[in-house]
């Protein structure tokens, strides 16, 4: 077994620094290590064993073990293994060695742990705020357990501003966002421009404050959370919904019935279809080609209708509960879906043929926004960005979930490393998705949609789940807990990693290429900004409904 073999190699090299390990089932490995050895072990796993970095998680475990916890997650894609290297830290003044100089991709995750849990990554070179707003008081960490979900911190200072770096010599600072026609969601890039060339940039994002993770571990219950999870993202919501459910199922060793797995697969692929078509449209809009933008959205529309027919909603499908799904695919929907796929294929084929021959689009996108293999490795880039650089990763095949292990499909890769390759990857993946849905409709067996779960879920178990979202791998980490809710739930959307590659992708490029470079990762800021904590001055005692929360996201202060 792969997990055992990896573990024995680690034990061989690091001996007693490995305190204990947990191998709950195929494809999962949890290793608990000495804090002092964490960095060396991560370096070994990342560089020598060539694992892919996923995310780092911090958790306040003081009410249970009296300690803080930090975990670095890695994936061995070829061996279908997800692993978490965890360590416990003392309760007062928790510090951990920063791994971001050996694993550059951990930059944001460590800053986030510093902001929200208050664990200091020692040796981090750029320890500015990432998640918390600028005016948030120092030393208040909202994801600690002693910080109530509805608490209003003392000393919020509206006038405090983020300290940006000095621009390099001879460069003008051009702000890009938070409000800009090509950004559908707020984020701020401070571009350093020399003439028409971008020489660098600094990022300040996390402007969509919703506090979803905090709510999940303090207010919601296991089966409420999927409905909240899909509101993390407006485009790939179902991905988060499924990924969360799978993470809990993996922690509690629950296997949903096969029909439910097929339905999950179908909905995920429907989501990929509409997301990729949406992206092609947006990318065309960015390069100033609105005709194809309109065409691809026209082709996309029937997919939204069929989603509405299945789930009652165009976007938020409310699909999963722990141990199953809520909607069935009826025989009439099945027929309709088949017809739709035929029509979609017939319409999309000529578009792809036209686009792949179009000299103008190629001119705009070839050699633009380069993300090569080294950058993919160092920044942990995922999804079409990685595949466009010839890095053959796809969680559907590498870490099979739902019904993907019973289906036959190809992982599309290109070697151009540029925006053009990303266009091709996405355009071709549409056909693979059509293929997958057809197979699901063919193979889907009758049976129950949900398991009846009578017992309480076990407490203190760790669960991981990686789901291939249209933008790349969405990774969910769950620690199960008491009161029918998880102790900790950490979501890593694909854009979280992909955005960190942007400064390298736009450096020394024309300003005109900056927007399509950013667009080519299909950025989804809401996904990335999913956490951050409770609103400041409102609702101290009442229970928050989802509508109120949504309203909150639209007004800065209530």
């Amino acid at each position, binding site marked *: 077994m792969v997990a055992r073999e990896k573990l024995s190699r680690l034990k061989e090299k690091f001996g007693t620094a490995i305190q204990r390990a947990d191998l709950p089932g195929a494809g999962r490995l949890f290793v608990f290590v000495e804090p002092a050895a964490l960095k060396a072990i991560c370096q070994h796993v990342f560089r020598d064993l060539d694992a892919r970095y996923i995310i780092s998680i911090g958790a306040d475990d003081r009410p249970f073990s009296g300690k803080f916890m930090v975990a670095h997650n890695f994936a061995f894609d070829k061996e279908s293994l997800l692993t978490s290297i965890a360590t416990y830290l003392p309760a007062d003044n928790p510090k951990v060695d920063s791994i971001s100089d050996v694993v550059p991709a951990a930059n944001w995750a460590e800053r986030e742990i510093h902001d929200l849990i208050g664990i200091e990554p020692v040796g981090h070179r750029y320890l500015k705020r990432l998640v918390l707003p600028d005016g948030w008081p120092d030393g208040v960490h909202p994801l600690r357990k002693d910080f109530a979900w509805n608490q209003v911190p003392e000393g919020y200072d509206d006038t405090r501003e983020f300290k940006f770096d000095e621009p390099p010599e001879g460069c003008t600072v*051009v702000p890009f966002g938070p409000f800009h*026609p090509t950004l559908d969601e707020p984020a701020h890039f401070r571009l350093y421009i020399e003439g*028409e060339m971008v020489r660098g940039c600094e990022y300040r994002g996390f402007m969509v404050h919703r506090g979803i993770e905090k709510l999940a571990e303090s207010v919601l219950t296991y089966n409420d959370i999927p409905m909240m999870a899909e509101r993390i993202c407006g485009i790939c919501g179902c991905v988060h919904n499924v990924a969360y459910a799978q993470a809990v199922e993996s922690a509690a060793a629950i296997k949903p019935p096969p029909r439910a797995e097929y339905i999950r697969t179908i909905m995920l692929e429907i989501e990929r279809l509409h997301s990729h078509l949406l992206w092609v449209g947006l990318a065309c809009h960015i390069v100033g080609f*609105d005709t194809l933008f*309109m065409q691809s959205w*026209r082709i996309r529309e029937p997919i939204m209708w069929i989603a509405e027919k299945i789930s009652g909603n165009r976007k938020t499908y409310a699909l999963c509960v722990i141990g199953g799904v809520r909607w069935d695919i009826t025989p009439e929907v099945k027929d309709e879906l088949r017809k739709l796929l035929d029509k979609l294929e017939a319409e999309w084929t000529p578009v792809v043929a036209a686009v792949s021959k179009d000299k103008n689009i190629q001119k*705009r996108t070839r050699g633009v926004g380069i993300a090569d293999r080294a950058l993919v490795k160092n920044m942990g880039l995922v999804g079409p960005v990685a595949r466009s650089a010839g890095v053959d990763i796809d969680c559907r095949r590498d870490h099979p979930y739902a019904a993907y292990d019973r289906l036959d499909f190809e992982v599309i890769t290109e070697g151009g490393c540029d925006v053009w390759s990303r266009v091709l990857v996405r355009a071709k993946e549409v056909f693979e998705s059509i293929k997958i849905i057809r197979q699901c409709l063919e193979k889907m067996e009758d049976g129950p949609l949900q398991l009846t779960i009578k017992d309480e879920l076990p407490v203190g178990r760790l669960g991981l789940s990686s789901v291939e979202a249209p933008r790349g791998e969405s990774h969910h980490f769950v620690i199960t807990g008491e009161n029918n809710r998880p102790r900790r739930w950490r979501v890593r959307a694909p854009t979280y990693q992909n955005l960190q590659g942007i400064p390298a992708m736009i450096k020394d490029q024309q*300003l005109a290429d*900056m927007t399509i470079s950013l667009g080519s990762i299909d950025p989804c800021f809401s996904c990335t900004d999913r956490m951050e904590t409770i609103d400041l001055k409102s609702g101290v005692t009442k229970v928050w409904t989802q509508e109120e929360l949504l309203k909150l996201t639209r007004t800065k202060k209530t």
Partner: protein
Amino acid sequence: MSLSELLRMLVYVVGVMAFVGLNAAYLVLAERKGAGRFQRRPGPTEVGYAGWLQPVADGVKLLCKQLIVPPGADAALFRLAPLLVMIPAMMSLAVIPFSETLVGRNINVGLVFVFAFGAINVMAVMLSGWASRNKYAIISAARVVSQDVAYEIPMLLVVITMLMATGTMNLHEIVQQQAGWFWHWNLFRLDLNPLMPVTFIIFFTCMLAETNRAPFDMAEAESELVAGAFTEYAGMGFGVFFMAEYANIVVGCAMTTLLFLGGWQSPFGVGSGVIWFLLKMYAVVFTVIWVRWTFPRTQFYNLLNLSWKILIPLSLFTLILTAVMMKVLRA
């Protein structure tokens, strides 16, 4: 000056203004309708019968908005810039002959007059960018200047070629020379210059670039520069820029028609008149709209490459070729 002359002038001034205004308003609608059809959707349909009153609604909306001059902007220049874009377009129309008799002023240097006023356009966009005191606007202004300078050169080289071929700067005479069947149009006069169609395409491309139309709309490039030089303009200030774009398209297309397509001359040698001029001009306008919705925006550096590396050498070559041909033919 006699009373009738004064009256004629008044009528013509009102006529030109109405022509520009109506064109600007209804070309916007035509553009939106056309774009809609290219994209398999109906375009605006709500206001008036099949959306015919949409330009009125747009105009009223823009007029109702507050004109904001941002703090730190140069208020005088900021307000002057929209006028400077609009006025040259109107001035140019004063010398453009719509038919044998329908012309504001038939002057001998009509050709130079139109291009001289056309060049003011660049300065106006630069002023708007500069006066706004906005980084996007200034980047856009810098782009517009380098773009328009780059495209002014091949355009004027083409104009010189035409001037040599026709031997006059009077627009009226240029059209008169093209009388008869359509092979008398300058576009098909291969005896003057075998590369005449190429010259036409160069002229048309430069016209697109000069009017800042997609795929050369670097000035506005909304996905990069928000609204470029017009970012800070609100209400009718923006509206005037918008209308001026279409007014300039009308002037550009009118010049294309006069220089290459035989102006008001009928293609069959008989029945010439204003109707042919308008038909040809709007056909060119339609092509301009068509091009916009067919090609993606080029990058700025490719745009300059196109001009300096292809269009200028080509237009220089046609100029020399015409000169040689004239010498050879005359000899």
